[in-house]
């Protein structure tokens, strides 16, 4: 993980300051992949479960990294937590995304929840509830690309790409090639 951020050329645009560029994101994901393997002592029984929307491509990238290191494929899945959110009543409803886990299910697996930005912790709370309706994993861990602080629940990440101290008034926007056409984390 890069020790410090060098300001990028497109710094200071209307959408804020770039704090992670494509290279930084790639390096952070490689490091997290290694951490997951180290912690799990290999790729056995591992299931990387991406949270919609941007956790899903991140989980796939971690799986590719792990496959490159270990030479084995790692199971991935997607989890949608819409129906489990505690703020359903304060928004108009929207259709949930796909929830998909491999045929073997989650029972007995080491499930690593993968999300883009960890903030209040409420999404992860919802994800843990959703996960328990799918089965009983042996262990659940959490990997996030950015931890911006301001937790409202007793939740912490096991693997963090970048700790990003922010004010509540600031906006962190994370963009990925798969969903937004480029890899970038900005703060505004």
């Amino acid at each position: 993980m890069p020790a410090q951020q060098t300001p990028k050329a497109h710094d200071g645009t209307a959408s804020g300051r770039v704090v992670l560029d494509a290279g930084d994101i790639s390096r952070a994901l490689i490091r997290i992949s290694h951490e997951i393997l180290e912690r799990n002592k290999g790729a056995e029984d591992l299931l990387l479960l991406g949270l919609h929307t941007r956790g899903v491509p991140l989980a796939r990238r971690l799986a590719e990294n792990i496959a490159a290191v270990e030479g084995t494929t790692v199971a991935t899945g997607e989890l949608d937590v819409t129906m489990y959110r505690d703020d359903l009543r304060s928004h108009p409803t929207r259709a949930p995304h796909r929830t998909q886990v491999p045929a073997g299910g989650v029972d007995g697996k080491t499930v690593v929840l993968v999300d883009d930005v960890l903030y209040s912790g409420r999404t992860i709370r919802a994800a843990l509830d959703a996960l328990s309706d799918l089965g009983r994993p042996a262990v659940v861990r959490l990997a996030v690309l950015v931890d911006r602080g301001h937790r409202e629940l007793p939740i912490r990440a096991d693997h963090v790409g970048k700790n990003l101290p922010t004010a509540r008034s600031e906006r962190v926007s994370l963009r990925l090639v798969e969903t937004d056409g480029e890899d970038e984390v900005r703060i505004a």
Partner: protein
Amino acid sequence: MTRHLLSIDDLSTADIEQIFTTAAEMHDVQQREVKKLPALRGRTVINLFFEDSTRTRSSFEIAGKWLSADVINLSAKGSSASKGESLRDTVLTVTAMGVDGLVVRHGASGAAEQISRWIDVPVINAGDGTHEHPTQALLDGYTLTRKLGSLEGKHVAIVGDLTHSRVFRSNIKCLAKLGATVTAVAPPTLMPAGVGDWSRTAGFATSYDLDAVLPEADAVMMLRVQRERMSGGFFPTAREYTVGYGLTRDRLAVLKPGTPILHPGPMNRGLEISADAADAIDSVVLDQVSAGVAVRMSVLYHLLAGEETK
């Protein structure tokens, strides 16, 4: 999304597509060991049925329960409605108990809409007289979309007792919004009065000749002959109806291979649909039933789970 679901007119094409997307997810939940989502936890839904129903009522009941709502069934038989209480008093009494949603079936066309003007909670029409049955049309559209992909340009034949059919009225609206073309087939006595002008504005065709329509159809929806709504004289004998308008074994043979056969149930086997057709490999009658739960979960979720729309 709409506050009440009284008619397919309340929904835009985008709304219908969103209901289908959610229903597809609900369909997956139906396959799980834990068939429960917490989206309506703490909410109460009342099924208020003034007409007999098994599948629609139990479908709504299961849908509500799988979303963690408390579902209470009230049927007119054995309720104070049979002691002479007015519809308005029954509805106001029930809602005063603190319900969050009302699913209503009533024998009078327009009952659901009338009720929605009296009370302040979302009302879902589960069939009103010979007017509409929107969730049935949604589940039919959803079933067809799963079988055929996009319905844009697809040709659906709706056959049977159209005069008395709220399923027909909801379906032509829903199928039109999904881009399908519809041919309504019925004997002249069971074709709704004034259908000519109506079909021109709503954009569907009518025919008295089932044999001419079947080879062209991408899907066939057989509707029940509703004897309980008939006072006689619509057709000479059941046998004659079957010869002219039943989906018999011979007529199965003229369908294009893979043409889905729908029936909203309950089926009069041997009258409008033969056992061969009801149990045919392309019959999707049971798919409709399981789609019914998924679609009703989706509707309950979209109407009751989110921010209140006034």
